[in-house]
């Protein structure tokens, strides 16, 4: 009951956030100087009629919203226009239908451009995150459990080093290692691999993913290990852990039933924050191990 209510609250808030972002982004680009049609096609030889046609193509001939012809420079227009026939509401309606429009830059549907690149990023981040979370949590738990022993020191030093390595540098080092071991260094699949049977295609993609995923995993594993270790050590010094011990629970049971859940809280927060950052682009990894991914889209 409580959980459902909390969930509904969260979802409602995220809807509001998304709405806010949509409204903000829409008007931001209308307030900023420069006509998208002009900015996109930087060719002074274009005729006025051609530009006008482009404006029609991108829907820029319509009023921005009721009462405003344009926002930069501010031009007051008619307030009696059908609101559904203004740029803002057409944009909102298209969004709802999953129609993202046409890119000013590439003149191709935005959805297509995103899809081909987002898939790569999601693969990289998904595999990297899952691996680094698993390894980080396991290392962190061991380090905290065996605190101040050699296991702990090894885990902490390794993690600190992994976390403080510059990502691009680690990627370069791994490229050297990869080239010595015959791993593919760039691209998402070998040329012509689409002719192969499905299984071999997957193996090929997996081989191409090894280096970027490894880079990603090493860096984030360090962070997760350190957070897990310190958080679990805090929890293990709590009174309720003493209670659990007095209850005759084994060390494993104490870790599993009383410590882990409580110690995961800070980690979950950081993972969520990292996901936000990384979906926006694992730029450095992608820049070194050349792959066309969404990250470079924003670069």
């Amino acid at each position, binding site marked *: 009951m409580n959980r459902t209510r909390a969930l509904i609250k969260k979802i409602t808030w995220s809807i509001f956030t998304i709405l806010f972002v949509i409204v903000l982004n829409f008007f931001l680009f209308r307030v900023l100087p420069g006509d998208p049609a002009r900015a996109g096609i930087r060719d002074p030889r274009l005729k006025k009629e051609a530009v006008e046609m482009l404006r029609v193509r991108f829907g820029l001939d319509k009023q921005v919203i009721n009462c405003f012809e344009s926002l930069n420079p501010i031009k007051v227009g008619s307030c009696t226009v059908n609101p559904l026939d203004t740029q803002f509401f057409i944009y909102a309606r298209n969004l709802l239908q999953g129609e993202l429009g046409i890119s000013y830059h590439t003149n191709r549907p935005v959805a297509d451009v995103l899809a081909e690149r987002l898939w790569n990023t999601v693969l990289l981040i998904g595999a990297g995150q899952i691996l680094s979370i698993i390894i980080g949590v396991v290392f962190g738990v061991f380090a905290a459990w065996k605190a101040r022993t050699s296991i702990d020191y090894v885990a902490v030093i390794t993690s600190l080093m992994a976390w403080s390595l510059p990502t691009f540098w680690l990627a370069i080092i791994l490229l050297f290692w990869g080239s010595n071991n015959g791993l593919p260094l760039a691209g998402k699949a070998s040329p012509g691999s689409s002719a192969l049977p499905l299984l071999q295609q997957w193996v090929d993609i997996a081989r191409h993913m090894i280096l970027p995923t490894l880079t990603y995993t090493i860096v984030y594993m360090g962070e997760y290990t350190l957070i897990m270790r310190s958080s679990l050590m805090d929890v293990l010094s*709590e*009174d*309720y852990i*003493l*209670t*659990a*011990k*007095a*209850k*005759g*629970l*084994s060390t494993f*049971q104490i870790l599993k*039933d*009383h410590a882990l*859940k*409580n110690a995961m809280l800070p980690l979950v927060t950081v993972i969520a924050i990292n996901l936000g950052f990384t979906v926006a682009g694992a730029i450095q990894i992608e820049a070194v191990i050349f792959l066309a991914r969404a990250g470079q889209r924003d670069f």
Partner: protein
Amino acid sequence: MPGRPTVEKDRGEAQINPTKRTVLEVQNLSINYISEGKPPARAVENVSFTLKEGELIGLVGESGCGKTTLMLSLLRLLPSAGQIVDGKVFFNGKDLTTISEKELNKIRWKEISIVFQGAMNALNPVRTVGDQIAEAITKHMPDFPKDKIQGRVIELLDLVGIAADHKEHYPHQYSGGMRQRAMIAMALACNPQVIIADEPTTALDVMIQAQILELLDNLRKKLGLAIVFVTHDLGVVAEICDKVLVMYGGVTAEYADVDTIYNSARHPYTQELLKAFPDLTKPKKKLSSIPGYPPRLDALPDGCRFAPRCPVAIARCHTEQPMLHKLGDMHIASCHLVEASK
């Protein structure tokens, strides 16, 4: 002690009874806290007591005199720095200081449970109270019918005056007193033979305190539960304890049955403690206090640990540690003056 209410003789079946079985026997227990580069801190030294079925022993002393350390050491729950350096703890003939951790885990909570001081943090904040009580049952009584566990949890909560619908609540939804009582309910979950209660009533108001004391008293009469009761409150001691162990600075000051402690205490520390306790028959009398502080464990005096604060200390007290002197069947005091008058 003239003017002090004498403790009633009639204490029912709980009266110290030689035919009763000894459940817990602590022999010459010494505990050091070890830290690198420093001499070990002698937190508890040479403490002994026995506890029989249905008995209630009061562990009395100022803060920092080793009560909690002693109590935790009985089940080897001390942090790794706290080490038992000498002595034995016998539970039904088994030495708890030497058995394996696995064997000890079968005794923890099943046979000896603990009510911790300040139950505020002693319950896990992310699990419901009912769940935590049920955990103790499923852990130690694997044969307990699964469908009856929830009923048992409700019964236990009812025993300490918590309504059944609080079972599904989290500790933060409980008041301080309720958490303390939930802790007691949890301690009773497996029908243990011994309960170690570390100041279980300090956080409670007087009404609840009286209820809890009555509950514990009933349980030991009904089930033969033996209780180690750690407390500051001499009034509580007089009310329910059979024996009293007075500790000072980690050592036994005096150990005797409750009548002897209240009526013919021999150790100056016990006498001073009793003077610091309000006397209802002389309401105008000013309460006395013992000047000074308990000794720091890293700077223990050479002689008797109480000597610097003792109103009747003689020269010898400052140089030589007193032995434990047996004054009667059930009366031990560690004081040079006792020896002199013997």
